[in-house]
């Protein structure tokens, strides 16, 4: 077992740190190769999988990928498309043709206006990072009930749990319908008491000064899961 692999689980690196030699490993996400050395480009934990060294970044921005389920809100409109903020570096477009409504040119506001939330799927991300979303698909819709909370894209894995165990537990405990989007937002539908319970559980994730992955946050969340 070599140095990179043995230290992979617990090692925290910062940008510019040398992770190891590139002769045995390929550079994955958050890692670049400079002069036969693997260099970390983000603050994160080193991991290794099948010969690829990558970083589990702390506090990184959400980068949209084709097929992602996302929750966004309308920021502006053109004659034939909506512009939405999905929490990424670039605004997403929802063309009239990919909406579930039979809309006429210029009549977009009848269905969805500035500030309205929607559940969408990323259809395409082009080389210039232009993001096109669709609302045609099962479950995709304009959000008119419940609340939307932010837990951060890095925390989704922990919140959902292995094979969705944590999410099922939370749903059962609160009686709410919860939709988790890959851009770190969750849509909670239910009665006021249930929504407040979900908010209590997800409160730790919204603390930007204590972002996941963080051992304290993980322990606090696991304790909450045991209690419910």
């Amino acid at each position, binding site marked *: 077992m070599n140095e990179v692999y043995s230290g992979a*689980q*617990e090692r925290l690196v*910062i940008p510019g740190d040398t992770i190891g030699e590139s002769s045995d490993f390929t550079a994955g996400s958050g890692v670049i190769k400079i002069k036969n050395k693997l260099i970390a480009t983000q*603050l994160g934990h080193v991991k290794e999988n099948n010969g690829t060294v990558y970083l589990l970044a702390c506090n990184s*921005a959400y980068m949209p990928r084709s097929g992602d389920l996302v929750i966004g809100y309308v920021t502006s409109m053109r004659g034939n498309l909506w512009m939405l903020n999905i929490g990424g570096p*670039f605004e997403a477009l929802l063309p009239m043709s990919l909406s579930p409504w039979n809309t006429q040119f210029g009549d977009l506001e009848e269905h969805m206006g500035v500030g309205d939330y929607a559940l969408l799927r990323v259809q395409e991300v082009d080389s210039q990072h232009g993001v096109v979303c669709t609302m045609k698909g099962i479950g995709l819709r304009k959000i008119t009930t419940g609340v939307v909370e932010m837990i951060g894209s890095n925390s989704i894995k922990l919140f959902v749990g292995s094979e969705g165990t944590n999410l099922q537990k939370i749903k059962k405990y609160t009686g709410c319908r919860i939709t988790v989007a890959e851009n770190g937002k969750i849509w909670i539908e239910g009665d006021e008491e249930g929504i407040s319970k979900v908010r209590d559980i997800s409160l730790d994730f919204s603390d930007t*000064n204590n972002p996941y*992955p963080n051992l304290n946050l993980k322990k606090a969340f696991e304790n909450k899961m045991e209690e419910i």
Partner: protein
Amino acid sequence: MGGYGDVELIAKDGKRLDGRLADELRPITIEVGVLPAARGSCRMTWGLNIAEVAVYGPMEAHPRKIQRPDRAVLDVRYNMAPFSTSDRIRPGYNRRSREISKVTAEALESIVMVEMFPRSKIRVEIEILCAEAGTRCCGITAAAVALADAGIPMKDMLVSVAAGKINDVVVLDLDKAEDNYGQADLPVGIMPNTEEIAFLQMDGDLSPEEFDLAMEYNMKAAKEIHKLQINALKSKYDGGVE
């Protein structure tokens, strides 16, 4: 640089007015994640300097005319608070803050992987709360930490530090009196792992030998400050991982 060479800034025992030796830094502290609303933030004290830096983004660049099709734009704003010095500073942008903002943006562009976020903008706000010479170095060093805290991909960290000349002696990290009455000032931005220079400015005159010595001091100090940057970042994210 006031250029008043007759002001005694170094005692006969080689110590400076504040008791430091020629190659000694002022005390430095770095704190990460001090501004909850920002994606990344840092508070740095360097001697009597206090700088707070907030990083937002990457986000859609507005107005659209500033967008670049192949890379992100670093929108850096350096500002000194009106109460940061004994003479009240008129609030708002001035020629000096514009120059430092530009220099800082160009220095940070050499470490940030801007090509990963075409058409977007990364906003870096540097606010100097207390000033005592060397605020640009303090701001740039803190900005690099805040960018790392925000999860912005970077090739290396960046440390900025200045050396200079007072009473014909090359010294590291000039304080206010030394900056006002010294003979030269040489602030540089150094990538500590590769030892590349991201920016270099010089005010006053240095001979080639003095320049080499000043760069030697700067390089040594950059390594020390880099360790402080590492400790500050690791102390925030010291937890394990799933």
